[in-house]
């Protein structure tokens, strides 16, 4: 039994893709080119029942754009009434005040809006949707107005890595309490466009050093990173629940048909939540076991940081090499 399953009898979070359908065609999207059958409402509720039975405390709807799913409100309400903590990530296009109020009424704890640049034209260009910046900002304002907690998600890429402070200011101006500066993933369209969008390892190192310094000085806004490669920096002092990628350890991902993958960026199915025994998947999946006990390979061998970073982002290593154990291509060491 790994350290993870010795402690955790189930993941803490399920990132749940109800549908891959989306009204945007973003340059970096992991899922825009995916297709998958979707489940009927009763099956979605059965999934909620399983998550409750397994004591999974958090679900986060992503996609695809959750707000275009007809079942979103009903499933979210069913889940929140069943005791789950429900959140979601949206591009904000459909998030007017009425939608924000409805999200609050069905029990959402927080809603994240993706904004990738403080400059409207850059955001709109990246998202291939004119007017999307304005609608995303209005979405944040709508959430603030109805009193529903908002977060802002920004995928760091070539278009914004030198202007992340302005993104933080934008968040402050619109009542956001927490900003996620997500690392760029080379999955789906992100893989196809990585030459244009991804930073070099040295640029990632410089970005994180700067962003960590800003984080340490910032008191009025919570700044979060989700990149395990950051743990190799001595400046990174946070105590995390697990070492390395949290995928397959603290979280799992649900595809629209109920298939489970370690995370949205690793398209390896480890079972189906409706058809397979969940505990067998969680405790016995060879894929999850491999992700939880990575072996130092290549330049990770003998690297003093491996104990902390566990080779960095498993999804990125897998996308570029097909091997979980290979070093994260973002690693600067």
């Amino acid at each position: 039994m790994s350290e993870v399953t010795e402690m955790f009898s189930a993941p803490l979070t399920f990132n749940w893709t109800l549908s891959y359908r989306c009204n945007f065609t973003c340059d970096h999207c992991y899922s825009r080119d995916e297709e998958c059958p979707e489940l009927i409402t009763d099956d979605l509720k059965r999934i909620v029942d399983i998550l409750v039975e397994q004591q999974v405390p958090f679900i986060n709807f992503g996609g695809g754009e959750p707000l275009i799913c007809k079942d979103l409100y009903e499933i979210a309400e069913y889940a929140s009434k069943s005791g789950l903590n429900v959140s979601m990530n949206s591009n904000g296009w459909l998030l007017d005040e009425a939608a924000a109020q409805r999200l609050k009424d069905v029990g959402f704890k927080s809603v994240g809006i993706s904004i990738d640049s403080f400059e409207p034209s850059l955001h709109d260009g990246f998202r291939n949707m004119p007017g999307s910046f304005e609608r995303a900002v209005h979405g944040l304002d709508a959430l603030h107005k109805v009193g529903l907690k908002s977060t802002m998600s920004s995928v760091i890429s070539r278009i914004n890595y030198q202007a992340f402070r302005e993104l933080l200011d934008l968040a402050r101006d619109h009542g956001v309490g927490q900003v996620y500066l997500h690392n760029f993933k080379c999955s789906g369209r992100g893989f196809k466009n990585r030459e244009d969008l991804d930073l070099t390892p040295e640029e990632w190192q410089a970005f994180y050093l700067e962003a960590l310094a800003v984080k340490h000085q910032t008191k009025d806004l919570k700044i979060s990173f989700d990149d395990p490669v950051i743990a190799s920096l001595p400046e990174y002092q946070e105590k995390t629940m697990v070492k390395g990628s949290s995928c397959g350890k603290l979280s799992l991902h649900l595809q629209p048909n109920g298939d489970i993958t370690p995370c949205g960026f690793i398209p390896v199915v480890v079972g189906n939540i409706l058809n397979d025994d969940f505990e067998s998947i969680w405790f016995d999946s060879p894929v999850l076991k491999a992700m939880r006990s990575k072996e130092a390979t290549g330049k990770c061998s003998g690297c003093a940081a491996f104990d902390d970073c566990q080779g960095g982002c498993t999804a990125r290593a897998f996308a570029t090499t097909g091997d979980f154990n290979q070093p994260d291509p973002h690693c600067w060491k």
Partner: protein
Amino acid sequence: MNKPLRNPEIVWRVEKRRQAEVLKALETGEDVADTGTVILLLSGMMHQLNLIGGMIWEQCDGQKTLADIAGELAKEFSVEQAEVESDVAEFVADLAERGWLINE
């Protein structure tokens, strides 16, 4: 604090498989004081409570008094209630100090 209530901001879970292992270890006389069986999640941080702490935590529903909780614990471990009362009070006071328990 007479009827302690778990802070509703805290998300928590009994790790049942872990709890079963600890109970088994306890039967063979192993020291399980440092082994967490209940996890608490607060502001992105995880905290753990050991078997006894977790049992007290589970009882803190805002309805039970400290005496009720001590009684439940005493029954569970087949000891006199008086033997555990001060430990329960001390533990509850510590968690209240952290803001994890509030008075109902």
